[in-house]
């Protein structure tokens, strides 16, 4: 019983830290609905800054660019990263450790170093003009490691007796892969894809170095505006970006939770179920 008060201190501390974490974001969201032109005096509720955004050609172009980059780099990074994760999780070969080190390098390399390395490479080694293409190449490069780590973590918990059971029951390797391995890995892959999408959506530093004049993404646009000072329409734009990334994450969490439930009971899936003594967990 004597420990009780200490836990109360910790609870107060926790409440304060959560307040610290959420307050700035909430302030931004609330003030994006402020009618006033200069930030901090509340003069009334208004959506004028949101309507101002819809007519802004630069914002619309940045938005389209952001989506194009995020979709393209997520697709590429997910496919390549999933291949690599399968190789690392399910095959033994020489160079395994070296490969893990390579993934680690791309996780710990500071963004600014990766950004200038890609800038130098694109401008001086291959000499391509900076544009959406170079931004997508750059985004795939830093998203790959995240996809590999997430998918690999999922595959590490994979029960190999399932594939053996499938083979014993006469499934070809291709059938085993498509009907047993892939469904079980699916929500790891989806999780990796969502992470890649959100990271690509929010990236500033690497995009800053690899984007050209016509390939401004929303974060780069916001960075430019913010460096010139605080503008109320930026509050509205920031709110939209915040809500968009949180929506993608919530959607992803919901879908993966559903996939997790489904793969936990494979016999309830439609189609011919693969039954084996190993389906229990």
């Amino acid at each position, binding site marked *: 019983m004597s420990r009780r008060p200490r836990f109360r201190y910790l609870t107060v501390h926790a409440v304060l830290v959560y307040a610290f974490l959420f307050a700035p*974001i909430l302030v931004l969201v609330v003030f994006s609905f402020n009618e006033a032109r200069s930030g901090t005096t509340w003069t009334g509720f208004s959506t004028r800054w949101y309507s101002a955004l819809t007519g802004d050609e630069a914002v619309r172009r940045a938005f389209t660019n952001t989506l194009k980059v995020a979709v393209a780099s997520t697709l590429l990074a997910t496919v390549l990263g999933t291949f690599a994760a399968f190789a690392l999780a399910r095959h033994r070969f020489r160079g395994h450790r070296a490969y893990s080190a390579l993934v680690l390098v791309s996780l710990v390399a500071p963004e600014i170093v990766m950004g200038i390395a890609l800038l130098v*490479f694109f401008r001086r080694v291959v000499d391509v003009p900076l544009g959406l293409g170079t931004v997508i190449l750059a985004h795939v490069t830093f998203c790959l490691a995240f996809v590999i780590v997430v998918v690999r973590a999922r595959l590490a918990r994979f029960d190999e007796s399932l594939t053996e059971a499938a083979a014993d029951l006469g499934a070809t390797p291709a059938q085993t892969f498509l009907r047993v391995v892939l469904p079980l890995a699916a929500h790891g892959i989806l999780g990796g894809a969502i992470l890649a999408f959100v990271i690509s959506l929010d990236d500033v530093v690497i995009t800053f170095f690899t984007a050209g004049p016509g390939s401004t993404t929303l974060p780069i646009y916001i960075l430019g505006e913010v460096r010139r000072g605080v503008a109320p329409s930026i509050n509205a734009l920031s709110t939209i970006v915040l809500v968009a990334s949180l929506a993608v994450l919530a959607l992803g969490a919901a879908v993966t939770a559903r996939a997790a439930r489904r793969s936990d009971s494979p016999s309830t899936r439609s189609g011919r179920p693969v039954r084996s003594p190993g389906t229990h967990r």
Partner: protein
Amino acid sequence: MTRTRRRTEALRGHLLLLPTTLWLGALLIGPLLVVVAFSLGRRGINPPVRVDWAHPRLENYRRALDPDFLPIFLRSAGYAAAATLCCVALGFPLAYWIARRSPRYRTLFLVLAVVPFLTSYLIRMYAWQFILQRNGLLNAVLGAAGLGDDRAFLNTPGAVILGLTYGFLPFMVLPLYAAIERMDPSLVEASSDLGHGRISTFRRVILPSVMPGLVAGTLLVFIPALGDFVTPALLGGTRTVMYGSVIQDQFRGGGNNWPLGSAMAVLLMVVIMIGVIVELRRSEDGLP
């Protein structure tokens, strides 16, 4: 497993890895090596860098740490270290509190701590700029409380350290939580039953078992904080320039000195790799 099967398996593994290997080789390792090469070069007009392999220039490295830039490097390390300490001070009690919730609520509180981190770093720094600016919310609140409403919060070391702390706090909470959760709570009870006070229990029982999480969290916060240039750009000013800002300036700013910027980037990378290697040597499981 027969020898042929093992060989086919290895072959399959390499085939699956091939696209990623090519990709990371061409767009990660290759460019990093180019940066190393450029750091030994000489600044030119066209092309902007000339590398004379017979006489590699170490001049850029000397310049990167000369009296113009060494203080900036040390300042960045200081800010990153201060932010790391703040993250420990805020994150350790929080992680401990979360780990002591019932399993049902643990995930919820952990997710709550991570959610802000999953939103744009830039926007979170901008939110602080909005709050800390001269006619911002903090001054308005202080003014209403009669404490004066014209304080300069932006462009101070405190603002940059606050931003870095805010930006990377979950990186500290997650590994600390993982370490605390693995710790057996009965150890703490045993320690107090054996007559240890709270401080002694913390130092002798809790601290040793959460050390791996603490080290991992320190690296995860310190590394990105050290190279950051978004936070000093938004919350800092000319007196709080960080090394990342100087590097950026050499490539996309007024500095425009690619060999010097490359040398700075290599130095930053070396410092970080030393930290990572030390951590990997120390941790038992090694590479992820």
